[in-house]
């Protein structure tokens, strides 16, 4: 049941994180992005009940724009590494925000987010958001529970 809760909490959690700390907004949800879109992806694992993998993919231009807004720097001065750090921090905050909405009794541990090769149009994408700067897709994969 908590797996369903997680997906239900995605939109309010994403809206809160993006508006409060990245000074942008979610315009709408979308079905997906065209195959081959250039994206930056970050992945982390969460341990609790349930456990699983949380991954975001964000279009390249949107990643740079969000990173510049987060750090208060000009986009042209931003290194790849620094933009990647911000995408990892975004993944960490989004995952924490979604998991924290499950319930007051729920406890979890997050791994350190890493930049990974990813595709926004992966078949396991849970939801895709349209931002003013581009697109942000999220995939949550739950660990199978032993019977």
């Amino acid at each position: 049941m908590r797996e369903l809760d997680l997906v239900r909490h995605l939109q309010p959690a994403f809206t809160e994180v993006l508006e409060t700390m990245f000074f942008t907004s979610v315009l709408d949800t979308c079905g997906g992005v065209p195959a081959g879109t250039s994206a930056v992806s970050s992945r982390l694992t969460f341990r609790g009940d349930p456990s699983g993998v949380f991954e975001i993919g964000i279009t390249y231009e949107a990643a740079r724009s969000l990173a510049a807004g987060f750090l208060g720097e000009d986009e042209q001065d931003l290194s790849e590494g620094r933009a990647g750090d911000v995408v990892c921090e975004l993944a960490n905050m989004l995952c924490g925000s979604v998991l924290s909405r499950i319930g007051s009794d729920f406890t979890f541990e997050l791994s350190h987010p890493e930049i990974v090769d990813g595709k926004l149009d992966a078949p396991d994408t849970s939801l895709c958001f349209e931002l003013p700067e581009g697109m942000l897709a999220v995939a949550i994969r739950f660990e199978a529970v032993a019977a």
Partner: protein
Amino acid sequence: MPFNLLIVDDSPAMRSFIRRVLDISGFAVGECAEASNGEEALELLRRQWIDVILTDINMPRMDGEELLRRLEQDDLLRSIPALVVSTDRTESRVHKMMEMGARGYVKKPFSAETLRDELERVLGVVDARA
């Protein structure tokens, strides 16, 4: 009166963001030191005057829980208020960190005003704007 702060977080991006929102909030910052884990923070605290610590929980080498434990055990450092800044918004985690000695807890995402309000509360000042 400006306050000397120590930001403890393994994410350089997050440390930069905290500096930025402190600036936006108008909070009177004196020196703003940074450490990427609890071990570095303890080293720095022994050679630099710090008024308040802002710490993450999940960090390599020494995490935020262990940092709070060490601060509580240290007669000289125990009086420095530590404020946890974390993505974990669950009440169980907040309760645990407060029991371990944290004086405040800021849940990510947070606004500039939220951070300043919590710092003012922890430092016992009505208005810490520059």
